[in-house]
Structures are given as structure tokens and as C-alpha cells.
């Protein structure tokens, strides 16, 4: 029993959530195995980001329960086991005067704890992690002077520096050019393969990520599919039209569709369904 539980990084059981009166998630049931690389896809406004926020304890479900590494989220305390990279545009003000080294160090703050300072070993770890994402030469550069793709690498490093067992990335490639996106996915795949870290990648770009992930989950209020990426690839077309209610090839390749403004999410979902 104990072993069985330990094999899941995240267990979501009958979770529902509504903003005010509007249902965003209905009866979600999903277990994410340890060591998997899950692509969580769905149209804008499908509740992907909400589900992530529930998994991170930033929101509380209206009903149902969530377990992280076998522990009910209400009692979960080992937050340093969990790394999170949010949509860059939302979470970070690019005029903030901090160097790459300072930003990546922040990833250790929760682990180091109150009233303690970073040790020499911690600082070494920060440097190693910066090297791991290929940003060593920018260690002392102000984060605001980097390109979107470089900044995103820095945020990955910040999430990785505490050696998390689970890394959640919420649309990390918004605003990053196509070539960098491919490199970025490759980097994630390598991480997952080599260090066995569980990855959850949230995206509405269905096309590009299927080659890299091990599992796919399709979400649009309800969970429409959750299984291996091979399974998904075989049944992709029927799966997609079931989820979006129409043929979606259009959306896969439409990168202009990326929008930083969340308040229009519902708008977008409506529009793409009418396309």
C-alpha cells in the first residue's frame, strides 16, 4: 500500500473548482506517476493554470482532494521538493535590479529556511545549476538585460537549484522564439531522462511537445484523455476534436494566438471554437 502510494507524484481525486459561480474544473481524477514527463494540454480557458495552482496549494479545491508524494496537500510541507516556473510575463517585472546569480539563489531560500544564510556549498550549487542551463557567462548580468529565452532558462535554473522531485512549468514558452522552444523542450526531456525528475508541462501548443513527453493529459473543464504519448499520437485527431469540439490543426500552428492577458482567456476559448 505504502509502495503503491509512493509511485505517484501527484494524485488528484474528484477535484472541482469554480471562480465565483463559473465552473472551471469538474470532477478531475488524475494520477501522475513519478518520473513521468506529462504534457498537460487544453485550449485557453480550459482550466490548466487553475489545476496547476490547485496542485501548488495557491488555490483550494471546492471539493475533492489532492495529494503530493502521497501526502494530503493540506498537510504537505516539503515545498522545496516542488519547483514551479510560471508564465514569465505574469510573474516578473523586468526592471527588477537583480543578477542571474541572485535570481537563481532565490530558488534555495525556501530550503535554507529562516534566519540562515546561503553556505559556500549552496552558492556552488547555484553556480552549477546556472551552468546546467547554459547561462554561466551571464551570472553577473542584470536579468532585465537578457532575452526572453535566456530569462526563461534562468527561471528554470531557479526552479531546479533546490533539486526538486517535481517540476511544474506553466506555459513556459510564451514569448520565446521557435528555435529556443525546441532547445528548451530538449533540455527538459534530458532532465527527465537523466535525473528522473517528474515534469508537468502546461501548454496549449499541442504539436511541438508530443515528441518529447512521456504522457499527455487533455483538459477542458473535464479530463478528456490521460495516457502515454504514443496512445495520444495515434488517436490525436479524434481526441482533439472531442476536446475542442472541432478540428484543431489551426490552433496547433497558430502562434500569434499566444496571449499574455489572462482576463481574455474565456474570450479566446470561445473564439477558437467558432473559428
Amino acid at each position: 500500500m505504502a509502495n503503491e502510494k509512493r509511485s505517484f507524484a501527484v494524485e488528484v481525486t474528484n477535484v472541482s473548482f469554480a471562480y465565483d459561480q463559473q465552473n472551471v474544473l469538474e470532477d478531475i481524477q488524475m494520477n501522475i506517476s513519478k518520473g513521468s514527463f506529462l504534457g498537460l494540454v487544453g485550449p485557453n480557458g480550459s482550466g490548466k493554470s487553475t489545476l496547476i495552482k490547485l496542485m501548488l496549494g495557491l488555490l483550494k479545491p471546492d471539493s475533492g482532494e489532492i495529494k503530493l508524494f502521497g501526502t494530503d496537500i493540506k498537510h504537505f510541507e516539503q515545498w522545496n521538493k516542488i519547483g514551479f516556473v510560471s508564465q514569465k510575463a505574469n510573474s516578473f517585472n523586468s526592471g527588477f535590479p537583480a543578477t542571474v546569480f541572485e535570481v537563481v539563489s532565490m530558488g534555495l531560500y525556501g530550503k535554507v529556511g529562516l534566519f540562515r544564510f546561503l553556505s559556500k556549498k549552496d552558492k556552488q550549487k547555484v553556480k552549477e545549476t546556472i551552468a546546467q542551463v547554459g547561462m554561466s557567462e551571464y551570472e553577473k548580468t542584470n536579468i532585465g538585460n537578457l532575452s526572453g529565452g535566456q530569462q526563461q532558462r534562468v527561471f528554470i535554473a531557479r526552479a531546479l537549484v533546490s533539486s526538486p522531485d517535481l517540476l511544474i512549468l506553466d506555459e513556459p514558452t510564451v514569448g520565446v522564439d521557435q528555435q529556443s522552444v525546441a532547445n528548451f523542450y530538449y533540455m527538459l526531456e534530458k532532465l527527465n531522462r537523466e535525473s528522473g525528475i517528474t515534469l508537468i508541462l502546461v501548454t496549449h501548443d499541442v504539436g511541438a511537445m508530443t515528441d518529447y513527453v512521456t504522457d499527455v493529459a487533455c483538459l477542458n473543464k473535464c479530463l478528456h484523455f490521460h495516457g502515454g504519448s504514443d496512445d495520444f499520437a495515434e488517436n490525436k485527431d479524434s481526441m482533439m476534436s472531442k476536446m475542442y469540439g472541432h478540428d484543431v490543426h489551426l490552433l496547433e500552428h497558430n502562434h500569434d494566438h499566444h496571449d499574455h492577458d489572462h482576463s481574455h482567456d474565456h474570450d479566446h476559448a470561445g473564439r477558437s471554437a467558432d473559428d
Partner: protein
Amino acid sequence: MIEVFFQFEFLRYSLFTGLMIGILAPAIGVFLVVRRLSLMADALSHITLTGIAFSLLLGRTVPFFAALNPVYMGMLFSVVGSLAVDRLGHVYRYYKELAIPIILSSGIGIGVVFISLADGFNNDLFNYLFGSVIAVSQADFYLVLALLFAVSLFIILFYKELLFLSFDEEQAIVSGLPRSFLHLSFMIVTAVVIGVSMQIVGILLVSALMTLPVAAAMRLADSFKQMLMYSIVIGEISVLAGMFSAFHLDLAPGGTIVMTNLLILTIIIMFTKSD
């Protein structure tokens, strides 16, 4: 020119108190600015005025308050004001900045009523509004000294948490930092620093010493640590230059300190390229 500050004991107290405030105000200001709370200093300084006026009013009838330094009542009001801002932030969740004009205008409004009830504007009040080089007593000096230690300790102990919270609040919460505790204690520390700083720079200009050095330092610094250091250096230069010129030209030090700050800021803006 400088010797005169060492000839007279009361000037020595003013000088050292001024120098300590030149450290305290920018050090707290750095965090206020990066948290987009620069205007908070204004709101809290105005509520400090209410406290001072209240203390002066009480002093007319209750002997205990006549003997009590009005600064204490000012600090108390400032702390209560910071808690009120926090509370109002919850009431107006989508218009958080509304809390600032509400507190600022209440501060002035109630303050003016208290002042009229006391005995109108007098010399004491002028000193509180615009600062004074000679109003600092030995007791004031020791109070500021004690606060310098307490506030420095606070910043050193919570430096990494405050930095993380300012840079990326969502991430900071995910990694388990106690947001509410940190935010509240930071606001209280801010309120206390404003309360003591107004003795030298004056209520109406406290916020300048908290924000102008930071605005200048921000344009020079690559890292957050650098910005903190530069802000303090600029704060010290402006306090020194401001106090000397105020004494020799018989001007209110609040004005001369702000003018020095402004000069430094203008030069730095002229000689740094905007990005």
C-alpha cells in the same frame, strides 16, 4: 564649516541622528520601491502627522502627554495606518492602490482638525513638517540608535525572504515563505522608520529620502545588493550635504536634503542611458 557640528553637543546629536536616518530610510525604501509601494511612505508619513497633532492636542490638557515626545504617538499612528492599508488592500482586492489615498487624505484631514483644535500652526509643528537640524534631543538620538540596530537586524535576518517576496510573490509563497508575517512585519518596520525619520527631514519629505536615493541607485546597479548599498551611500551624502547647508543658510533641512537628492538623481539620469 563642519567643525561647528562638533563644537555643540546638540548639533552632534542631530548630525549622528541624521546619518543614521540616512541609512534607515533608503534601506527600507529599496524594498518599498521594488514592491511598487513607494507611495506607501507618503501615506504613512501623513498619518504620522495625525499622531503628532493628536499628541500636541492631548498635551494641552493631560500633563503626561505634554511631557511625552510626540514622535511616539506619531509612530503609533503610523503603525496603525500600515495595518489599515493592509486591511483596505483586502477590501479592495482589485484596486489595491486605493488604500493609499484613503489613508493619506484621512491622515491630513484628521491631522488638520487636531492642529486647529490645539493652537494652530506653531514653530514646533513647522519643525515636524519640514524637519529641523536642532530639534534632536539626546533621547531622540538614543531612540534612533536603538532602531538602527533593530531595523538592521530585521533586514539582515529577512534579507533573502524580503528579496524573494519583492521579486516574485507567487514563487515565494510556493517555496513556503510566510508571506503574511513578512509583509506585516515589514510594514510595521516601515512605519517606525518613517516615524523617527521625520524629525530630521520632516513629515512631508520623509518619503523623498526613502525613494529618491533608490531611484538614483536603480539606474547604476546591476544586482539588488548593489542597489541597496548605492542607495545608502546616496542617502548619506544627501543627509550630510543637506544638513550642513541647512545649518549655515538657516533653511529647513528637509528641503536641502531633498534638493541634494534631486541633484544627484538628475546627474545620474543624465549620465546613464535609458533602456
